[in-house]
């Protein structure tokens, strides 16, 4: 990002959406944050369009003191940028405190104490909000004139060792994330990071390009983009080397022997993605019988039972992608398509602009880039039970989605025999990682698109009358796990719903009706007020409300209890309830 772009974003007033929530970030460093603050602010505004972003950057000069001062702030997140001069001012260009052998022992001793103090302050801060820490990225000053710059001095190695141990200690805490120095190294060459002129003139040590890269790494960790949900892969010269229709199932390869190891590495990555709940499908122009022969080979690294659905035929791949999206019931923006053919990629991209299309590399040297890119797109901090059962529940959704049960009485009969159980858990303590994930990644059945940070939602639930209700679902075909979350607040005779999301896997099971029925009963109110807003993606929810209201809502509305009961459908779920404070 260019500085002028960032300034334009930051300085352009944007209309605050009615549902905007504040997002307060502490950007803590020992130098004047100048352009780093501008870039972080701009990137956060892009990442959090429905939030009002505020940045607290403290006072220039002392990182530890700045961290102490954050105790007075109410924060959603903190980004801490450590540089060498935070360990000892003599490690910065602005200090004239003396370089030379005599200073070395003193600096090392002081740096160890400084890092211990910083660690305590950062750990304490992490009890109040998520913290991202970036380690020193500039070069060390030529502290020992006797050592040439191409020789690693004992001092430099030891001070780096102190920082490394500091990072290891911090990484043991759940709410502290360390920026990966290797990622920074790839994006910003170490020789192009320091701007001595700027450091001396304004106290800002970074070049514009490095400030931009560093801000990107911080914001990516502060506000991680939602992970993709599925990957659709080609077969020939992608999952394996060779055209199976030409050389036969026995001769396609993914091993070192066949000089095809990069395809084996790719299969191994897909296997690990499948194990963490990522959906894997195949879209290939091929003869299905020949492909099936390869799928029966015992040396296949990707277990083929983890792949669903398999689209193997000679029709356009965009059609295959259509059917895969339908089978998975996910939006195109949640999906990655990998193929070695630029024309296939272009055809899919034209039909599905939101799908992320990635070309499988031709040269083995490029496989690590593909692996890194897929890791970044699919990485998630926590794998839930819902992730593990996702594929099985999609396979099981066949009886419901494709058994042709379209007539109302057929659907009722189907539900009646499904032995479904809905378990509601309600209370301020119902918030967990799965509930937060569902709120932040659901698009189609989403009341208003409102997203929350962990801390922001905890604060919201701390307010009088606020509650979170989630529900898990199971029927004779198996469990779906937690599939819906409602966030709202209740007062005497009133109930307002601020957020309501439901996983697309739970559609067609009348769970949305059961939720409303449960809310009316549990809170015993004559109407429910919905803080509804139209989003680009919440058409399924609008359709549901249109059935109840006889018109599609355009903004916040109320649903009278009598109207709901008059227009609801027969429900067959067994309801269980837990209250958790």
């Amino acid at each position, binding site marked *: 990002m260019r500085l002028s772009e960032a300034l334009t974003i930051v300085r352009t007033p944007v209309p605050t959406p009615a549902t905007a929530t504040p997002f307060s970030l502490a950007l803590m460093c020992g130098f004047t944050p*100048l352009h780093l603050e501008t870039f972080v602010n701009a990137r956060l505004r892009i990442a959090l369009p429905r939030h009002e972003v505020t940045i607290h950057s403290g006072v220039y000069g002392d990182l530890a003191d700045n961290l102490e001062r954050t105790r007075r702030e109410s924060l959603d997140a903190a980004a801490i940028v450590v540089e060498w001069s935070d360990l000892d001012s003599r490690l910065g260009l602005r200090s004239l405190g003396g370089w030379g052998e005599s200073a070395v022992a003193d600096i090392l001793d002081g740096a160890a104490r400084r890092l211990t103090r910083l660690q305590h302050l950062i750990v304490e801060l992490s009890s109040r909000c998520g913290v991202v820490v970036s380690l020193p990225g500039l070069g060390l000053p030529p502290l020992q004139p006797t050592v040439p710059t191409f020789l690693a001095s004992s001092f430099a190695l030891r001070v780096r060792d102190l920082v490394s141990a500091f990072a290891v200690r911090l990484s043991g805490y759940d709410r502290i994330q360390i920026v990966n120095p290797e990622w920074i190294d790839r994006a910003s060459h170490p020789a192009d990071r320091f701007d001595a002129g700027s450091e001396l003139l304004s106290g800002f040590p970074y070049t514009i390009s490095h400030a931009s890269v560093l801000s990107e790494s911080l914001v990516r960790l502060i506000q991680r983009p939602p992970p993709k949900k599925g990957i659709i892969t080609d077969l020939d010269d992608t999952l394996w080397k060779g055209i199976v229709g030409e050389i036969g199932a026995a001769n396609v390869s993914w091993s070192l022997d066949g000089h095809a190891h990069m395809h084996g590495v790719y299969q191994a990555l897909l296997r690990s993605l499948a194990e963490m709940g990522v959906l894997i499908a195949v879209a290939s122009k091929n003869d299905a019988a020949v492909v099936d022969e390869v799928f029966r080979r015992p040396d296949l690294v990707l277990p083929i039972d983890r792949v669903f659905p398999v689209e193997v035929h000679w029709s356009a791949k965009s059609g295959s992608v259509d059917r895969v999206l339908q089978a998975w019931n996910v939006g195109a923006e949640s999906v990655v398509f990998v193929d070695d053919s630029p024309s296939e990629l272009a055809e899919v991209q034209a039909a599905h602009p939101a799908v992320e299309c990635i070309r499988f590399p031709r040269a083995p040297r490029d496989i690590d880039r593909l692996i890194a890119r897929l890791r970044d797109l699919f990485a998630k901090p926590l794998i839930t039970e819902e992730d593990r059962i996702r594929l099985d529940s999609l396979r099981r959704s066949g009886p419901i989605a494709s058994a042709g049960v379209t007539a109302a009485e057929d659907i009722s009969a189907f539900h009646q025999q499904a032995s479904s159980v809905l378990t509601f858990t309600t209370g301020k303590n119902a918030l967990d990682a799965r509930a937060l994930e569902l709120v932040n990644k659901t698009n189609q059945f989403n009341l208003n698109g409102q997203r929350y940070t962990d801390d922001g939602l905890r604060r919201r639930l701390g307010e009088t009358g606020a509650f979170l209700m989630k529900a898990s679902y199971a029927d004779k075909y198996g469990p779906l796990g937690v599939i819906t979350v409602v966030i709202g607040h209740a007062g005497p005779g009133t109930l307002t719903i601020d957020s309501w999301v439901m996983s697309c896997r739970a559609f067609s099971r009348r769970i949305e009706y059961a939720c409303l029925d449960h809310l009316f009963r549990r809170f015993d109110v004559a109407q429910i007020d919905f803080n509804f807003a139209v989003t680009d993606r919440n058409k399924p929810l609008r359709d549901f409300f249109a059935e109840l209201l006889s018109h599609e809502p355009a903004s916040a509305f109320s649903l009278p209890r009598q109207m709901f009961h008059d227009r609801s459908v027969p429900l067959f779920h067994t309801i269980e309830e837990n209250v958790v404070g």
Partner: protein
Amino acid sequence: MDDLERRLIQCFAIVFPDVPDHEIRQADATSFRGWDSLATVTLINVVEEEFQLQIDVEEIGEFLSFPRFLEYLRSR
């Protein structure tokens, strides 16, 4: 107004978004509200980025008005 001047006005407008174009052309650090040392650094960085050039630290003191910036760019 030529292209160079238009681009320079754009740089000033990015750093001082509330100031109308005709005032930008008269801009001077001594009389301009909000033109402090950090604004000078930011302005120089934006101009460097826009015109793909590097301004020496020693020259910074000379860049305290719009006409001076323009003169510098024309002389290059």
